[in-house]
């Protein structure tokens, strides 16, 4: 402890702490640890945000990454989770909205991949008539996303310029593969409320007037991707 205090107060240099090695300098060896940390954190962040990396220039990405790591961000036990707070950091530090949404999307893909899902899923055939008081439970790997930008068309083709346009989507995991598809604003509102443990009837009301055909089409799709794990009566 005495050493730590002396070092912190500037009265001690690293050479007072470490033995002079048998070969070479302690600085070169110290750098090995420092560089290892830089490389590992950079690789981990780039693995979670490959599209964002491509979107930003090399310098912008490097600055964003190092600023993020130098902030008060959580350094979790798992290196793969180091970048989880990046979207919030970007929002607090003036990044472009479209880039923040892209980061959120990539984080949700990561979370979906690693989510602990139930082994039990329900098919639409098992519930011919779903009561409006029913509550749905969904797989942990299902995420709903919304953006005020043309996120999905940009994801489809990065040459599409970012433009203001509300887009919504569902991220899900099926057979260990993470996929997504876009939905309408009404469908997004409906699913958001339903996912929040509200009844089917309340969810429909929250979404506003809902075309019955559209609803049955959405439900068919939701059951087909096996994200519904339970339906409970009120």
């Amino acid at each position, binding site marked *: 402890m005495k050493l730590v205090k002396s070092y912190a107060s500037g009265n001690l240099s690293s050479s007072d702490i470490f033995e002079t090695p048998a070969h070479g300098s302690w600085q070169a060896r110290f750098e090995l640890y420092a560089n290892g940390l830089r490389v590992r954190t950079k690789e981990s962040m780039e693995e979670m945000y490959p599209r964002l990396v491509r979107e930003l220039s090399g310098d912008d990405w490097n600055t964003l990454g190092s600023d993020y790591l130098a902030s008060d961000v959580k350094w979790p036990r798992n290196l793969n989770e180091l970048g989880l707070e990046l979207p919030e950091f970007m929002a607090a530090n003036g990044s472009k909205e479209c880039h923040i949404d892209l980061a959120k999307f990539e984080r949700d893909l990561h979370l979906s991949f690693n*989510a602990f*899902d139930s082994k039990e899923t329900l098919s639409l055939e098992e519930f011919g008539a779903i009561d409006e008081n029913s509550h749905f439970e969904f797989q942990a790997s299902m995420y709903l996303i919304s953006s005020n930008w043309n996120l999905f068309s940009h994801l489809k083709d990065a040459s599409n310029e970012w433009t203001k346009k509300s887009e919504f989507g569902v991220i899900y995991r099926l057979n260990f593969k993470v996929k997504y598809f876009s939905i309408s604003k009404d469908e997004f509102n409906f699913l958001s409320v339903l996912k929040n443990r509200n009844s089917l009837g309340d969810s429909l009301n929250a979404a506003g007037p809902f075309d019955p055909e559209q609803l049955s089409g959405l439900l068919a799709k939701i059951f087909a991707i096996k994200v519904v794990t339970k339906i409970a009566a009120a």
Partner: protein
Amino acid sequence: MNAGGLSVGPPISMDMPLVNFTQSSNRAGLGFRPFYYKDIFGGKAQEVEFFEAITENYMDTGGRPLYYLEKMRAEKPVFLHGVSLNIGSTDELNQDYLRSQKRLIDRIEPEIVSDHLCWTGAHSKNFFDLYPLPFIRQSLDHCVERISRIQDFLGRRIAVENVSSYLLFKDNEMAEWEFIAEVAKGADCRILLDINNVYVNSVNHAFNPQEFIEYIPGDRVVQYHLAGHTDMGDFLFDTHDHPIVDPVWELFSFTMEQMGSRPTLIERDDKFPELEELLTELRYVKTLILHHTAQGNQLVVK
């Protein structure tokens, strides 16, 4: 439990002998890495007698990685090897980590649970590296106390591994091998002896690696690690991205002469070669083990 025709005993609990003589010490295994999943589940790794998985890679995921680990566990023994238990840190033991680790242990029923005798983070930040400890009485007592608490929580003994290091503290009061032996004795834990790390440190810190091995209490050693490293000119860097070098093979043989064979793992974590290249090394491990066993050196307890 019977896994793929191999006799697999129950997890070793606190009241069992340090070395479980009912389990085969002659086994050779590989790290369970995603790069090799296709080959492994494609039937190309039948001769691998056990796999070792990185604990943290399966603690926080419920998707494909855990599915593959459970699939493997149904076929062969699995050991869990952690990198973030942070045994030597001055931070409080991370209860959340321990709970997740225990859940995974209960799910996988690994034969051996291990982590490193080092620190990996401080001030609630994990730095994803294995940093050296000062070999002083204070840190020794600290590690003993923490390992004891970890073992109490998990309800089983863990094995602690000697790490590679590039710096030594001026305040060291004892040699690394004395520190490890004392920690293992004090905490009543087991030792995962990494032969490559012993060799790397012997070059980096200019000591005789055989002296290290001779001092380690064999009755606490439950597993060996072998790996390659990178020669940086002035020192060796433990990279796990090269084939095992001759001096490490020789030290492995010397170790078996001293304390007998143990389940031996080849670690490869980067620049992954074709599986066949690792299997060639694995066969050599097996040949050396059987050679030593034939000479009556199996499970010699010093």
